[in-house]
């Protein structure tokens, strides 16, 4: 089975290890990833800020890039996948672009969604002998309705001790443009999140979304915490002591 990797701009620029893990993990599961190299950003920042014309032109480019192949499109980000699912709203009903947007959205999946819902896999053979807690990212949880997928995958990881995070489902305060328009509020929300993570006593905090990971990692660093932030996919790819 072939899949197209949609690595997202945050993934590409800030989390290269996670993308490498995603590639090798898919291969371990017998899947052949390919990488459409013309890909850039999906247009989510513009769309969520109200600049729909800009988002539309970025959606067009994205759709051209990923429509060369019929293979499913797999991404390590819930919010970017959610953006692709908004694409049909950007084009008039009945237009060719609208039809293409619907077709592409139907075969674009967030990584855990693809594993659990499409492949029916929850045990990926990972080994991660650490105490971990998990932050449920808004766009995975409520945006795509993936409430249990990440936790089911974590539950199957060997020697992983799972600690439930207090207010696990509360936003970390990132919110894209929100974090720079209202930095004080964003910072206060992050402090809340970091306080709960520290209180969990975990060694790692697992996050399935690059934006939240970036925010939470910065918050932990600022608080001087030794708890390590890590993307869910890296945990699932881990086979040794990490």
């Amino acid at each position, binding site marked *: 089975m072939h899949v197209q990797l949609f690595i997202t701009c945050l993934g590409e*620029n800030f989390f290269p290890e996670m993308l490498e893990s995603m590639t090798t993990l898919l291969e371990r599961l017998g899947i052949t990833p390919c990488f459409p190299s013309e890909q850039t950003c999906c247009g989510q920042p513009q769309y969520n800020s109200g600049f729909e014309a800009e988002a539309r032109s970025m959606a067009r480019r994205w759709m051209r890039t990923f429509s060369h192949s019929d293979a499913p499109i797999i991404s390590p980000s819930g919010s970017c996948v959610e953006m692709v699912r908004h694409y049909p709203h950007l084009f008039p009903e009945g237009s060719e672009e609208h039809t293409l947007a619907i077709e592409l959205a139907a075969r674009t999946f967030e990584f855990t969604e693809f594993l659990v819902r499409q492949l029916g896999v929850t045990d990926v053979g990972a080994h991660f002998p650490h105490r971990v807690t998990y932050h449920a990212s808004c766009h995975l949880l409520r945006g795509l309705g993936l409430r249990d997928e990440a936790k089911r995958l974590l539950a199957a990881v060997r020697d992983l001790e799972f600690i439930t995070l207090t207010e696990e489902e509360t936003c970390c305060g990132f919110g894209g443009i*929100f974090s720079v328009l209202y930095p004080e509020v964003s910072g206060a929300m992050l402090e809340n999140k970091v306080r709960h993570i520290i209180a969990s006593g975990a060694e790692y905090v697992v996050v399935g979304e690059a934006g939240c990971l970036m925010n939470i990692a910065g918050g932990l660093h600022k608080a001087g915490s030794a708890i390590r932030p890590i993307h869910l996919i890296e945990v699932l790819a881990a086979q040794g002591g990490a």
Partner: protein
Amino acid sequence: MSDTPTTPIEFRRYTQNLSPAIPIAIQQATGQFFEKRNARVAELPEWELLRDAGHRLRLHTLEHLDAYLEQAATSLMAAGVQVHWAINGAEANAVVLDIARQHNVKTIAKVKSMATEEIALNTALQAAGFQITETDLGEFIIQLAGLGPSHIVVPAVHLKKEEIAQLFEEKLGVEAPPDPEQLTAIARARLREVFLAADMCISGANFLVVETGTLVMVTNEGNGRMCTTLPDLHVAVVAIDKVVPDWEGLATLLKLLARSATGQKLSTYTNFITGPRKTEGEHGPRELHVVLLDNGRSRMLASPLTRETLKCIRCGSCLNVCPVYKQVGGYAYGWFISGPIGAVLTPQLLGTKIAAELPYASTLCGACAEVCPVKVPLLDLLRHLRRRVAEGDATTTPVVSPVLRGVARGSAIALGTPWLYRLGARLIPLLQVPVRRGNWIPSLPAPLNRWTMMRPFMPFRARFRRWWKHHKKNE
């Protein structure tokens, strides 16, 4: 009282210097409400079906609002109610003032109402020399403090008992210990005088049942029943979106409202008022007026998306679950209604010139939309209004700052052009060298300091494309 803002609402400026006491008080109260709400919801396996029924009922009503309003007016008049129509707040206030003057009213007892906050009725009445007292405990407190409500259901949620005690000592001239029970007793004694002396009651209504012309008022303190029973004159200001076709529909909405608002199966008092007293032996006012208020709502009805805003039944659960509201409280939103519903309603009622900052006062986390008992699509509305701010629409010109517009256009070009994007991914790691300190960038110049003032930034480390090439070669 919350006067209508006439200058831009400054969410950022308000939230820059927030006292740390505010989030603590608000989080305690909203947390309790929300826990109770969750417990009540968990008891009903059919909760999601109920939400769906509520959503369909509200939408159906709004789609046929013209017909339902006509029927409502007919039923109200048949029940002996005098019906008035007001296109905006000024007209509604003028109607109420006229009624008060015609009856030589001096003192007015007021039931908590969001509609009257919306039109700043108290301010208009006080300016005309009438003495008006809010009789809901929370409203009584904030009226003494000269404030508007900071929460839809619990208007004084941001105040601690110590602050309320001090306020009572200052404004009422009594000794007031910071004890909720004793403070309530003080207010109760005061309010008893108000109930007995008032020659007019002003209220809103949670619902207006079309088939019988019945006003429905949901309260927990009994003040509503005092106000609508004792004075001879009762005026209810009711926004046109409050209508419910029949009692069956009302039952659905009451189930959703009480559980969502306060975590109760039913509020302590659910008042049904059908017309004034009919015979001398009955209780209730001799005269009952209903002012049906539009104030921008028919404009919102015109579009299928904005129409959905009007499904709101003012339960406040979107505030109780909103992580932004819980940090900033109600006043950051600049007007009588706050939280996610305020962030979408205020820009629609006052325009994006006044409320441009509000649609952005959300992380789009979606917690609000998930709990809304009538499924108001808050995220779609927030994005729609952001678009109205950024791009304008048929009736509104864009009001977004030139800086933000520049960033949006520039980033769309830089991120949307493959060669430019790849060039950036190679160049930025070199350009960031002077500001990089190990694995972090501790601070950046303005405007990027808006990120680093709260947490360090991560250095750019694009290397996947190179890795991928090697990886494929080695296969």
